[in-house]
């Protein structure tokens, strides 16, 4: 699989269809996103389990694709994406954090065991170049349990889990869709400086509201959390709410814009 991917990328480079390939590189066991420009470099291209491709949190220059596009106008970039990466890519483009112009999407579908490891519902990009689309994981049992909870049980559940928070900002920093220059999670108005655990539930509420219409469901927030807070339950609930209310699913076609990015009236119902 990885050999096929490398061969495909080398071909694209050799044929001059792209100037560089953006993907993950194996650095002695750790994986980092980088640009590959030669066939020799591409031998270190990997598809690593839970490593995410996009890091956009501050400082803003972590958004490597946007930097490359700003420095070299007209650059053609091949981007190796899995399902979650592609959803993040499309949302970032809709939010004007990078441009899809000149971008060649190299989609790779994950296999069943990878999908299970990430509890991923859509483990494939729209048009995979490599790999077969496999059925995603139906539903996380934790989510099923969460759905059945009564309001007071939910409140107790979140008191327990959010009370463990050590305010490391790992969920925000790992999130591919968090890029505000001025983060509301650092604003004294909402989150008391120096206080632990952080304000319940405001600290986590900021992230869940901001991600409602853009979450790629990659699970980076939950993986980054050192206190094992089930953050994806919140993200999934909000994503489903946006879909139920407005019929919008993040990571969908670039022409389909979020109801909140659109100033028109939309399909909203009286709340």
């Amino acid at each position: 699989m990885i050999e096929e991917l490398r061969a495909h990328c080398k071909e694209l480079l050799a044929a001059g269809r792209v100037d560089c390939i953006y993907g993950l590189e194996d650095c002695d066991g750790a994986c980092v996103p980088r640009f590959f420009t030669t066939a020799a470099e591409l031998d270190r291209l990997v598809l690593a389990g839970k490593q995410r491709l996009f890091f956009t949190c501050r400082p803003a220059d972590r958004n490597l694709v946007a930097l490359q596009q700003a420095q070299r106008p007209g650059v053609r970039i091949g981007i190796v994406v899995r399902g979650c990466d592609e959803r993040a890519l499309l949302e970032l483009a809709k939010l004007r954090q990078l441009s899809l112009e000149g971008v060649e999407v190299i989609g790779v579908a994950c296999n069943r065991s990878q999908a299970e490891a990430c509890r991923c519902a859509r483990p494939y990009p729209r048009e995979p170049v490599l790999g077969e689309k496999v059925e995603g994981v139906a539903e996380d049992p934790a989510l099923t349990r969460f759905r059945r909870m009564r309001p007071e049980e939910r409140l107790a559940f979140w008191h327990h889990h959010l009370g463990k928070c050590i305010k490391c900002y790992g969920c925000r920093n790992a999130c591919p869709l968090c890029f505000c220059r001025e983060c509301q999670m650092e604003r004294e108005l909402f989150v008391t400086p120096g206080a632990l655990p952080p304000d319940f539930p405001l600290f986590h509420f900021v992230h869940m509201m901001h991600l409602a219409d853009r979450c790629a469901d990659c699970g980076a927030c939950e993986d980054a959390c050192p206190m094992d807070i089930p953050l994806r339950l919140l993200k999934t609930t909000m994503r489903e709410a946006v879909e139920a209310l407005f019929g919008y699913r993040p990571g969908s076609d670039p022409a389909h814009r979020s109801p909140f990015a659109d100033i028109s009236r939309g399909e909203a119902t009286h709340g």
Partner: protein
Amino acid sequence: MSFEPKIVAFLCNWCSYTGADLAGTSRMHYPPNVVSIRVNCSGRVSPLMVMSALSKGADAVLISGCHIGDCHYVTGNWQTEKRVPLLKKGLEALGVDPRRVRLEWVSASEGARFVEVVQDFIAEIERLGPNPIKGASHDRRAACSL
């Protein structure tokens, strides 16, 4: 002791705040449980501000602005109209009753309607009882600092 709900009302400068003012100048009576906060437009009210009010002591939050089509910033209340249902879903996810947040359109001439809205809302919150998340972080930290 009977429960006196505290309600924070975000009122738009052009319609609802003026509507509330009209209720006052017309000497209409309504319970003093409402703390009004004047905002330029109901579209300015972020879900974070609502959650902030709820977690810092309010039992409920009223958001009120111009009727649809009357927004002085043309599209402001359309945004409110989209945001509030999502905010309610967020409250539900956390286990807070979404009825604690209400969106009502009140125009500058509807002083009587403002009074009705407030009375009805207060009656509902009295039935729901105190907001379970108010002061939650403070209590928790006090317990931790021992």
